[in-house]
């Protein structure tokens, strides 16, 4: 199973505002990409569009496996993990409950992920009592439980301490070594070799052309 991501001529809008235009890139197994750019340039919107959560304004996002293009609904359910900058956790449920649910819903087993992310001592706590960094570690567990090719990470390192940044970086490298792919929106460069994609604001002409003035 070798999946590849191809992005051709992608343009994204938020409201009437053109964020990204004419974006081309391809991502192959084992490749990681850092997404940089100033605040509001569209990093999160790009990640959410790649995940299929919102539709592109123009252009094409294709997931190709062995020469055949995959259905985007299937890709979302089987090949993609999304880690948003909001941790998707229910505040009144315990860490163990959240892990058990995610394992059943997305696939996999919690045990290895708990050990890898050092969550043992947190299992009985309700997630509302966790610090931002602990929440992020808990969110990362699903990346490890259900094996999926493409990780879309939105500022994954932001709330973590130095130790756990290094830990997450190792997990990301292990994922790439296994033939996975990842795209991470970051402000500080990742501590390993990645391709860089720097997003810039579209020019005034591009804006006007998109709106059709």
């Amino acid at each position: 199973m070798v999946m590849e991501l191809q992005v051709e001529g992608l343009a994204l809008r938020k409201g009437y505002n053109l964020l990204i235009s004419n974006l081309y890139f391809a991502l192959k197994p084992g490749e990681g990409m850092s997404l940089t750019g100033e605040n509001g340039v569209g990093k999160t919107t790009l990640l959410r569009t790649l995940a299929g959560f919102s539709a592109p304004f123009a252009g094409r996002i294709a997931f190709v496996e062995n020469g055949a293009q995959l259905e985007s609904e299937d890709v979302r359910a089987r090949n993609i993990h999304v880690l948003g900058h909001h941790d998707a956790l229910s505040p009144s449920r315990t860490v163990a409950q959240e892990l058990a649910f995610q394992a059943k819903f997305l696939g996999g087993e919690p045990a290895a992920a708990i050990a890898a992310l050092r969550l043992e001592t947190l299992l009985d706590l309700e997630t509302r009592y966790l610090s931002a960094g602990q929440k992020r570690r808990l969110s990362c567990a699903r990346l490890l439980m259900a094996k999926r090719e493409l990780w879309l990470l939105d500022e994954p390192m932001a709330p973590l301490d130095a130790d756990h940044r290094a830990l997450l970086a190792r997990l990301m490298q292990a994922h790439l070594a296994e033939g996975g792919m990842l795209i991470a929106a970051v402000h500080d460069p990742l501590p390993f070799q990645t391709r860089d994609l720097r997003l810039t604001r579209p020019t005034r002409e591009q804006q006007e052309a998109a709106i059709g003035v």
Partner: protein
Amino acid sequence: MSRVTPSLTQAAFALLKRDLGLSLTRSGGPLLAIGFYLTLMAMIPLSLGPDQAVLSRIAAGLTWLCLALSSLLSLERLFERDYEDAMFDVLRLGPLPLGLIALLKCLSQWLGTGVILSLLTPVVMIILGAPVDMSLMALTSALLGSLSFALIGGMGAALSLGTRKGGVLMALLVLPFYVPPVIFGAGLMQAMQTQSSPWQALAFLGAYALFALALTPVAMGAALRSALN
């Protein structure tokens, strides 16, 4: 890379279990709706006077009205909590389509609140003076009615997701669709009191529940997709 994808039924059961747990424990759970229901019903004899003849005649109709309002009460937050917690980011990456996720949420809402309100319905009717032999039919019809209420209410909750003060908007959207079950349910009770056949009204109640079961997932899926974009 070896992928593990859970089956549709496994994921559906996991979601149903999670949501049922949440609807039973979070923010008072069904107690809020039950308290509202019982308080409304307790106010009826206080406002109309304790005349047994009057009360037993209108008990069934009023019970249905209160059931509809109590069902509506807890539906406002059906999708909102997961929306605010960004849980939909995880739910959308599972094997279930959005419409099915919404349907399961409505079903857990029904199991956690609607069923309990339905169990109370015959009791409340008897307290208000309806004949005891109506209780089985009252329970059956309340179960069917509250299922319709949960599904139609889920549609309203999906449509008003992301709007401020969505509760009032939702009530306006949903209440017109609550009219048929109220009519059939109260009609069924009246038919029983006048010794005519209740089956026709029960069939309509069942048909309405099936109609809601078939159509609302499509509507909820579309509404959620647009709200989550």
